[in-house]
C-alpha cells in the first residue's frame, strides 16, 4: 500500500522526463522523497537498498554477459575469425546459452578438497567485485554510495578478491591450482602498490578522494590532459598494473593455460566456475571504469577550450553514454593487450613491477606534487 503511495508521488514529475538522462539526481531525489512520505526512515533506507541491490545485480549480470560476448567477438576479429555466430543474429545469445549450460553442469565434488573453503572461494571473489561496483559513479547523480574516501575504498575492496583466488587454489588440493594461487598472491600484492600510487598521483591533482568531486574537478578538462605528462604516465601505469591485478592479458599467470592448464580454477565446474569467470570480467569492468572516472573524466563530456559550439554538441550526449563509452574504450585496450602479447614469466612480472613501474611511479608522484605546487597544470 505504502509502495503505491510512493509510486504515485514519484509519477508527479516537475521537469521534462528526458532531463533525467542528464541529471539522475532528479529521479533519485524524487524516489527518495516519495518513499519518505510513505514510510518511516528505516524502511525507506531498507527499500532503497533493496532497489539498488537488485539494480546492481541486474547491471552486473548484463554487463558480465555482454563482456564475455564482446571479448569473444573482439578476439575473433583480431584473429581473422567470425567468433560466435550461431545463436541469434551475430551470435548475441551465445553467452546466454553458455550461461544456461554452466547452470546445468554438474558440480563435481572433489574428494580430498577442503569442502568449506572450496565452496566459499567463488563467493569471496564475486562479493569483492560486487562491493567495488557500489562506489563507482555511473552518471550525474547515478551513484550508489558516494564515500569521501572512494578511491581508497575501491582499492581496498578489489584487493579482497585475491583471498578468494588463494583459497580456491589451496583448497582444491591440486598441485597446478596451488602454483597458480601462489603466483596470483605474489602478483596482486605487488601490483596493488602501482595501482595505489597511480591513483594517488591523480588524488594529488584533484585534492580529494571522493569520486564525485574527482569527476566534478574534471568539468574543465580531463585529468589526463590537465596533468599533462605525469598524469599520462600515471594512466599508462594504471592500465598495466590494473591489467595485472585482474589476472588478465599478458599477466594471466594465475591461470596460465599453457603451463598450469587452468590455474586456480582447474577443479571448479558449473556455476562455481561461472562465478570466477564472471568475476574476472567484472573486475575488468571495475578497473576500466575507475580508469575512465579518474583519468578520462568519468561521465563528463569531452570539451575543447573555447569551441563553444562543439562543447554544446558534446553536452547533448547523455553522461551515461560518455561513461560507458570511456569504460569500453579502456576495456577494448585491455582486450587488445591480451590478444596480442605473450605471457610474462613470474620473475619477469615481479621485475617489471619492482624495477620499472614502482620507481617510475614514485618519481611520477613527486613530479606531480611539484607540478601541483607550482600550479603548472591547466
Amino acid at each position: 500500500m505504502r509502495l503505491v503511495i510512493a509510486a504515485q508521488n514519484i509519477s508527479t514529475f516537475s521537469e521534462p522526463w528526458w532531463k533525467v538522462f542528464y541529471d539522475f539526481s532528479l529521479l533519485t531525489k524524487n524516489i527518495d522523497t516519495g518513499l519518505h512520505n510513505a514510510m518511516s526512515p528505516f524502511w525507506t533506507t531498507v527499500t532503497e537498498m533493496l532497489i539498488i541491490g537488485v539494480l546492481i545485480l541486474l547491471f552486473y549480470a548484463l554487463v558480465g554477459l555482454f563482456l564475455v560476448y564482446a571479448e569473444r567477438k573482439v578476439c575473433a576479429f583480431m584473429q581473422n575469425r567470425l567468433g560466435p555466430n550461431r545463436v541469434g543474429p551475430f551470435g548475441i545469445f551465445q553467452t546466454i546459452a553458455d550461461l544456461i549450460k554452466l547452470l546445468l553442469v554438474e558440480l563435481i565434488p572433489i574428494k580430498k578438497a577442503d569442502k568449506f573453503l572450496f565452496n566459499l572461494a567463488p563467493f569471496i571473489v564475486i562479493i569483492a567485485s560486487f562491493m567495488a561496483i557500489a562506489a563507482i559513479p555511473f552518471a550525474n547523480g547515478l551513484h550508489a554510495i558516494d564515500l569521501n574516501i572512494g578511491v581508497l575504498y575501491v582499492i581496498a575492496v578489489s584487493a579482497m578478491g585475491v583471498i578468494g583466488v588463494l583459497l580456491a587454489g589451496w583448497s582444491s588440493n591440486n598441485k597446478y591450482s596451488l602454483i597458480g594461487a601462489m603466483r596470483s598472491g605474489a602478483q596482486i600484492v605487488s601490483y596493488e602498490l602501482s595501482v595505489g600510487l597511480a591513483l594517488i598521483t591523480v588524488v594529488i591533482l584533484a585534492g580529494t578522494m571522493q569520486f564525485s568531486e574527482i569527476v566534478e574537478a574534471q568539468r574543465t578538462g580531463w585529468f589526463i590532459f590537465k596533468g599533462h605528462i605525469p598524469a599520462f604516465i600515471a594512466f599508462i601505469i594504471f592500465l598495466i598494473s590494473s591489467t595485472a591485478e585482474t589476472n588478465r592479458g599478458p599477466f594471466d599467470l594465475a591461470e596460465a593455460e599453457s603451463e598450469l592448464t587452468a590455474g586456480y580454477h582447474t577443479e571448479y565446474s558449473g556455476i562455481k566456475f561461472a562465478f570466477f569467470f564472471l568475476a574476472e570480467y567484472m573486475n575488468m569492468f571495475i578497473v576500466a571504469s575507475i580508469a575512465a572516472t579518474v583519468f578520462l573524466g568519468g561521465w563528463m563530456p569531452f570539451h575543447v577550450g573555447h569551441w563553444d559550439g562543439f562543447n554544446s554538441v558534446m553536452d547533448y550526449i547523455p553522461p551515461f553514454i560518455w561513461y560507458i563509452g570511456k569504460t569500453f574504450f579502456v576495456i577494448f585496450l585491455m582486450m587488445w593487450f591480451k590478444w596480442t602479447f605473450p605471457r610474462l614469466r613470474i620473475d619477469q612480472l615481479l621485475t617489471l613491477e619492482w624495477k620499472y613501474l614502482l620507481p617510475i611511479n614514485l618519481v611520477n608522484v613527486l613530479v606531480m606534487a611539484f607540478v601541483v605546487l607550482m600550479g603548472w597544470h591547466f
Partner: protein
Amino acid sequence: MRSIYNYLKEVLMGVWSLLKGMKVTGSYFFSPSKIVTQKYPNNRNKLVMFDRFKGEVIMPHNEKNEHKCTGCGICEINCPNGSIEIISKTIATEDGKKKRAIDKHIYRLSMCTFCALCVKSCPSNALAFSQEFEHAVFNRALLIKVLNKPGSQLMKGVE
C-alpha cells in the same frame, strides 16, 4: 647518467616493440574483409572440392548399370589395411564358358587410410575417388559399403 639513459632507452624500445605487435592485431581488427572463416554448413551447396580429393573409394557405373571391375583382386592385395574384400562368383557367359565375376566388392570406409594404392593399381580403372567428405553416420555398420550396385554387370570389352 649513462645508465639512466640506457634504462629509459630500454623502456621506450620495449614499449615500441609492443606497439608494433598491437599494430598487427589492430589492423586485422579493423579490416573485417580479411576474415577467413567459412560458415561451413551454410555454404555446403557452394562448396566445391578439388577433383583429386580423396573422399572415399567408389566404383563408377555407367547409365546401363555396368562397371569395369573384373574381380581380379589386385586391389585387395594392394590394400595395406585389409579394407577391401572381394567376393567373386562364377557365371556362365553367352557362349557357354564359365567365367569369374564379381559378386560383392566390399569396402570398409572405417579402415581406409586413403593411400590410393587400390585406385592406382587397378588394371581396368574400375575404382575412383569421390569428392564426398561428410562420412559421419550413426551406425558403424553403415561404413561397410558394397561398391558394385545391385544387378550391375561387367562393362563390355573389359577383361
